[in-house]
């Protein structure tokens, strides 16, 4: 029942997004603009500053993720549908998991465009070890969204939620960002340092386990007024 409810909420979020495409388009527009601006600053005569590509990819993911998290819960706030979900005869952490899966899916779709764009604009060899890169991106996205989904749900009733979300989210997800950037930078080295990238991937997976477990544990008490 737990997984069924989570998947039901994911399916509902996908159905809404498929109709409106509002969050996907706004996050993509924002992230692409971000990468373009950085490319003007950090690419001179076709050569990018060392490790800039890794940093900018993860900054774009973080900014796009913050926007997506806010908008996803704005939808649940608009008709107070979050209350209806909380009243359903399901374990409340399943609601958290469903929302988390939806945001992760959305960001993964955005990354499908962002990664080739960064590779192109920064002449970065991002596709040399595609499986490792995909692992780093997925693990980093899950870690970032695990914390972000919890905070976005908590802040849904706060008037200053748009300001508070990044203030709370960024300091806590700094370890995820560092691991993501260093792991990606290791893949961009010549030759790619697979051992270092794997070490950072392992660390990201550990963060994911800790963040998701804590969020599932605290979601119900945090959501009761």
């Amino acid at each position, binding site marked *: *029942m737990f997984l069924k*409810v989570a998947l*039901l909420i994911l399916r*509902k979020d996908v*159905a*809404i997004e498929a*109709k*409106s495409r509002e969050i996907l388009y706004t996050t993509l527009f924002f992230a692409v603009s971000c990468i373009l601006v950085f490319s003007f600053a950090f690419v001179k005569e076709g050569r990018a500053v060392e490790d800039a590509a890794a940093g900018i990819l993860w900054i774009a993911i973080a900014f796009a993720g913050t926007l997506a998290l806010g908008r996803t819960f704005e*939808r649940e706030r*608009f*008709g*107070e*549908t979050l*209350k*209806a*979900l*909380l*009243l*359903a*005869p*399901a*374990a409340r952490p399943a609601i958290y998991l469903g929302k988390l899966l939806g945001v992760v899916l959305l960001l993964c779709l955005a990354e499908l465009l962002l990664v080739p764009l960064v590779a192109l604009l920064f002449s970065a060899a991002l596709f040399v070890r595609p499986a490792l890169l995909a692992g780093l991106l997925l693990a980093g996205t899950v870690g970032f969204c695990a914390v972000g989904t919890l905070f976005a749900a908590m802040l849904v009733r706060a008037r200053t939620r748009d300001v508070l979300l990044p203030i709370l989210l960024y300091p806590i997800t700094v370890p995820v960002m560092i691991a993501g950037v260093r792991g990606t930078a290791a893949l961009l080295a010549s030759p790619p340092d697979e051992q270092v990238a794997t070490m950072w991937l392992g660390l990201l997976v550990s963060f994911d386990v800790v963040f998701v477990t804590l969020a599932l544990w605290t979601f119900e008490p945090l959501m*009761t*007024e």
Partner: protein
Amino acid sequence: MMVDFDQVALVDVTRHFGRRRAVSHVSFSACRGEIVGLLGPNGAGKSTLIGIAATLVSPSAGEVRFGGRGARSHGPALRGRIGLLAHELHLYPELSARQNLSFFARLYDLDVGEHVDAALRSADLIDRADDDVSGYSRGMRQRLALERTLLHGPRLVLLDEPFTGLDDRAVGIVTERLKRIASDGAIVLLATHDLDLADGLVTRVLLLRAGRLIADETAGAGLRGRYRALIGGG
């Protein structure tokens, strides 16, 4: 596990929001078949009491008992016996009426085909079932929201201003619907400040002022006079 109860009781319930006391030492109970009207001016604590009865708001002191059980003892199973229609309608405007009802039917583990079509017929929305809710009038949304609330046959039905945006015909339909579900054994708790609508519908009246329960009496003729005497205005 199926949880059922014949009575819901609020026992000495108090709720603070920061320094503001929204509800203060309120006690009452309601049984199957009753339509209890929570009446009072704005800020009297009606919506907070509805939230507390729905288990969405924790009381600062006191407790809610569902047929002798505390709210925490049967969490999800107990929530499955509660239906709530609040100020906001708990609908996704981007989805159609059918998609909204199907989503909630699945969430409550109900047979989608059977329950959704019946709810659409009851809301008189069968012809517009596949239109997005964002294109509906307020009255249509309100009717759909009521059917969403009643979709799973809740034992405790909590309604916060359920007549908002309804025309006279729709008010009549909703009134009859509420009387029918009460006679079928539901406990209906209805918060409103519309005395005319409450007058012919509720079987018992709880009058609230500034978070305190100031009267608990059987409904009868002359509700407006009693309200004016106890609350003022009206």
